[in-house]
């Protein structure tokens, strides 16, 4: 399950001799006998034999003064052939015109053919934020590993987080492409490329995208198996799983799709509010109401390996049981240290000063929920054709959770 065939051909790819117009001088012959001869002298000899002018680019002037040529032929050959061999022997690009021989270095020729190309790397799965998904807190349980209201974390946190601006291989590839003038604006990459380089890079990026955007699909089925029925639990074949699935009731199915290494969740359940807490505020009882969620939650993170998929998953199956309530009473009381006005009996127009006031107290009914809970977790190497069956005793039979990969 390797990702990406990064196939950018980086070897020097010379074009064939470029001929512009009618060049009968190319049919003249010459026997190459250059054994580490200076390139300048070689070019002069060829141009002289063809009786054409020679036009060297600035780079070619410099190269002609430094480079040497080792090219020997056993017989005279047309200049057309000699020039073609010279391109390989000297890394120059030659253009023949009726009157001239134009000489450029290979790099100059390549750079002249390059044109601006921009890639939105997100289209190839690079720089896309792969978001880990979390499920809300469920039941009376709590988990300290997820944080931020997460039900739980199917795996320990991964070291890397957030989008990768540009993958390592792409950086390397661009370096190999001899790209001094690249510009990265957000996820948009701007390069100067020849048509061949563009085609190769596009192919590589498309192949990368196939790996980076590949998803795996999972289905988690839960249900109750009637008491007394046979059951094989653990890692089983898909056939065993299918047989078991047909015997479960009521059946609940959660289907998830994840990118490589992404944590995804799915929930099927109910929620309601409950007054199940009390705060003491200013010497009085203040009801604390919060949501209570039950049902089935799945959280999984598949990570591709070479022989298998590393599957990390956590599940939560919560069923409310009959809940109770209890009453809390804060009795009325006189508060000391404060002053209150009390009307005098029979003299409504006047009042007397009395120390303290009477707090009427309050009565609060608090929910005491109860639940059946099962929170299995697994971390396993997942191979094709396998399924996972988890089980636990349930008040009405045997609870079963079945995990399968969808093709």
């Amino acid at each position, binding site marked *: 399950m390797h990702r990406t065939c990064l196939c950018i051909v980086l070897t020097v790819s010379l074009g064939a001799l470029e001929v512009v117009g009618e060049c009968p001088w190319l049919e003249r012959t010459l026997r190459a006998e250059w054994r580490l001869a200076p390139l300048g002298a070689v070019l002069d000899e060829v141009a002289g034999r063809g009786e054409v002018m020679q036009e060297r680019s600035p780079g070619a002037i410099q190269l002609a003064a430094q480079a040497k040529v080792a090219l020997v032929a056993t017989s005279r050959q047309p200049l057309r052939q000699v020039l073609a061999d010279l391109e390989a022997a000297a890394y120059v690009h030659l253009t023949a015109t009726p009157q001239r021989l134009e000489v450029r270095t290979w790099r100059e020729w390549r750079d002249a053919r390059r044109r601006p190309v921009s890639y939105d790397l997100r289209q190839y799965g690079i720089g896309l934020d792969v978001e880990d998904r979390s499920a809300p807190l469920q039941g009376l349980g709590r988990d300290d590993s997820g944080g931020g209201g997460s039900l739980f974390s199917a795996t320990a946190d991964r*070291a890397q987080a957030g989008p990768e601006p540009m993958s390592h291989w792409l950086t390397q590839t661009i370096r190999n492409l001899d790209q001094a003038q690249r510009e990265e604006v957000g996820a948009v990459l701007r390069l100067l490329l020849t048509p061949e380089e563009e085609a190769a890079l596009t192919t590589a990026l498309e192949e990368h995208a196939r790996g980076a955007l590949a998803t795996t699909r999972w289905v988690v089925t839960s249900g109750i198996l009637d008491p007394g029925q046979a059951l094989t639990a653990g890692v089983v074949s898909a056939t065993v799983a299918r047989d078991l699935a047909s015997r479960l009731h009521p059946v609940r199915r959660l289907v998830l799709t994840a990118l490589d290494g992404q944590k995804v969740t799915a929930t099927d359940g109910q929620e309601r509010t409950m007054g199940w807490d009390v705060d003491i505020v200013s010497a009085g009882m203040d009801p604390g109401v919060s949501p209570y969620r039950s049902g089935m939650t799945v959280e999984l993170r598949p990570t591709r390996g*070479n022989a298998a998929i590393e599957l990390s998953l956590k599940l939560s199956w919560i069923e409310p049981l009959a809940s109770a309530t209890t009453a809390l009473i804060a009795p009325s009381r006189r508060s000391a240290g404060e002053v209150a006005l009390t009307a005098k009996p029979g003299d409504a127009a006047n009042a007397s000063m009395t120390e303290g006031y009477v707090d009427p107290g309050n009565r609060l009914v608090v929910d005491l929920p109860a639940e059946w809970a099962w929170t299995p977790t697994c971390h396993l190497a997942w191979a094709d054709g396998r399924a996972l069956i988890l089980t*636990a005793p349930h008040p009405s039979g045997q609870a079963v959770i079945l995990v399968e990969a969808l093709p």
Partner: protein
Amino acid sequence: MRTCAILCATALLTAAELPTSVNIAIKARPLIDLVDRLARACDAGLLVQARVVDRLGVVATYEFNDAAWMDVAGILAKDHRLLVRLNRDRLEVDDLDADLRARLVQRSYPIRMLFGLPAEQRDTINLSLPDPGGIGSRLLPPIVPAEPLNTVGLSELIRASVKPGEWPEVTSVGEYDADRTLVTQTPDMQGQVAEWLTATERKHAVMVQITLVALSRDPGATVLDAAAWQLASAGAGAPLGVIVVPDRGMNFHWSGTRRHVLMDVDRIQGVYDPIMTVIADGLRVSASPAITVAGVRLDAVLQLVDGQKLGERAVTTADGTPLLTLTTVERAESRVADTRLVPPGGAAVYRLGERVIAAAVQVVRLAP
């Protein structure tokens, strides 16, 4: 006439051929002299690629007497990284690695599971009654991540395992990120690398499956071998649970009931502050298996809480005015935390109060 000309031209083109033996000596001369004489020995021309032309200026001394062509080519390859080959009517000299370099591709491979699944530690709640106000039965312990894969020496291991000797300098095995490695090689070699990585991962992707079964009869042993387990488990009902865990990792099973109860009250500055708590019961098993040559070493904690009875205790003022009702709890709790060495296919047997619970241990590998 035309046919004759074509035949002659073909003869000229194919006239060059490798000599049966090479007899050439150069003494303190540029290498170009040697390759030029090799070309003549082949009746061929010479084309030296620009990228290696500088190497032919190197002064060298060689003496070949009745040497085989392959030996001469081998020496030039070894001493100067030169590839010398006869192509039609000329001897071509190029960089030995140029061909290879042109065929190189880069591929990244996952390595997270290369030497086994990361051995994370996952534990579950403690079923013991929490201290009032505590969060004991609510809090799942955090997952303790596995140590990151130690990639020191991985590059050398791959080079030594996959066609050693076919990793010239232009190829590479390097770090891509924490979970992947980047290999630069030919497509053929990439295939070999992929095969080796797959086989290595498959070999190490070992998990332990622990199936918890309630036994109606005590077999009278703490550990059963595979045969004894077959006998003891005959007729047992559906499993109480199953734990799948990587070798040397930790995982758990728990299912049961949880209740929100008013367990305590604090009187603070004349006010009664109720303390709510979650209590849980059921069977909790935390298992850490390690595969050894003698069987599976099973470190386990089993805790069974059942027969829970809840009662009430009223809290009133001195004159009998009711304030609140505390929940009282009475239940049986049994617990075992020990280490067993379980033979392959066998089981560990635990006694928890009146119940006998077996943990059947099975090593699960990926199919070859």
